[in-house]
């Protein structure tokens, strides 16, 4: 019954909108108004000399995107620590804010129970994969000095976001947060040190709990 009302509502909405569109040009299709009458002769509208200069100018190279890879150690709560590796992609919206997407993969080791019992495994597929969509903020921009004549730009950033972790045959809603240090070796190549905590709910060991999965990585990224 309720869905019949929804269909009715949809039909009414479509009719109303198309009616509005016909009278008020609500969809903006076609010209809003008739073009203003041109009083000048058509020959003087365009100045060819200025136009040609515009075209010759090279476009400014924008380098707001950052792409790279990372490797490190990830601890899966109750399942030991193992190597983690992944890729990272970021877009710098302002000098402070950036959005980042990461994809990573690690392995879950055996729990103490699995080791001591000597056989019975809780589950077979031990691969852990995750993706995250994050918002970061460069909270402490700065410079570091190596020796007397070299200065490098750096950023200490805070980052948090949402994503999904595939672990023990299920996709798990994951919240992650952490901090990182970006060291710009040149203006376009950066070295990263990152620490994150990935939180998800898990009930594989009997009762449901929130697992903290700590991750420490180093990585290299390129701006383009």
């Amino acid at each position: 019954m309720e869905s019949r009302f929804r269909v009715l509502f949809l039909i009414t909405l479509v009719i109303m909108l198309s009616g509005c569109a016909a009278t008020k040009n609500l969809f903006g299709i076609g010209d809003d108004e008739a073009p203003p009458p041109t009083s000048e002769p058509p020959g003087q509208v365009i100045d060819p000399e200025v136009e040609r200069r515009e075209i010759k100018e090279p476009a400014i190279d924008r380098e707001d995107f950052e792409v790279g890879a990372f490797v490190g150690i990830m601890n899966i709560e109750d399942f030991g620590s193992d190597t983690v590796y992944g890729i990272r992609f970021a877009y710098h919206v302002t000098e402070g804010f950036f959005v980042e997407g990461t994809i990573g993969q690690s392995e879950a080791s055996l729990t103490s129970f699995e080791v001591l019992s000597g056989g019975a495994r809780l589950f077979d597929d031990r691969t852990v994969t995750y993706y995250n969509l994050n918002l970061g903020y460069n909270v402490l921009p700065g410079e570091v000095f190596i020796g007397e004549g070299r200065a490098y730009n750096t950023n200490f950033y805070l980052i948090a976001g949402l994503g999904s972790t595939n672990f023990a045959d299920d996709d798990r809603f994951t919240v992650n947060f952490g901090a990182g240090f970006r060291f710009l070796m040149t203006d376009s190549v950066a070295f990263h040190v990152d620490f994150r905590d990935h939180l998800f709910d898990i009930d594989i060991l009997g009762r449901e709990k929130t697992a903290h999965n700590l991750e420490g990585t180093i990585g290299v990224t390129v701006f383009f």
Partner: protein
Amino acid sequence: MRNGWILEPSTTIIPLTSRLSAFSWSACLLALALLAISPGQAEAADDVLRKVAVADPYLEMHTGPGRGYPIFHVVDRGDSIEIIMQRTDWYQVRAADGTEGWVDQAQMELTLKPDGSEVDFARATLDDFTNAKWEAGILAGDFGGANIISLYGGYSLNPHVSVEVWGSQILGNFSNGWMGSVNVVHETWPDWRFSPFFTLGAGVIHTSPKSTIIQGEDRTDQVGHVGAGLRIYATRRFLLRAEYKSYVVFTSRDENEEVEEWKVGFAFFF
């Protein structure tokens, strides 16, 4: 059903394919994003640099592209500089003596082209919020009691009407899934800073029960939705977005399923 979204009793047991979903999907998305962006880079790799002349009494060069980096060099009025690259609102420039440093947008706006005309260093404004062609964003929220994470891209046909493509992952206590949809968005007042919109769309939803649930099967159904929301211009290219959508899942059973969704997130336009 506390946090269930869909808990469907059934006797069939079908092996789960969720392993494939998260990793390979996101890898594909990333690869696509890279492909889409790389052609622009080739064009930018031009040896000829854009030259401008300083029109202000002096131009300050900073050691880095951001607030707080110290000024280490100044270029006098009338001298010319070359622009190496731009990062957010900062420009890396090279002075005639070869010194390289970063100049902020406000100072670059006070430079002149070789022919003496003003340079247009366009900074995104509310006007671009209304008229920008492309938009992409990330939203998260609640989908009938489950968590949902969504990624979308949109193209504006005109300031009022745009078309969007959405990809979502749904993570519940009892079942997981993904959803892909296409929708049309209508903004009645696109020039407002708080711009309300209405949306209509259709798509496909895939559901699979969690491995700890013994009963249940994978399902793929069609969905239709109506919704409304608000786009809020924040700053530069940033906007905030909040929306409500009401979904009808066209199941093969006797009754269609109805799901309500609330989401908030951010997006940027270009």
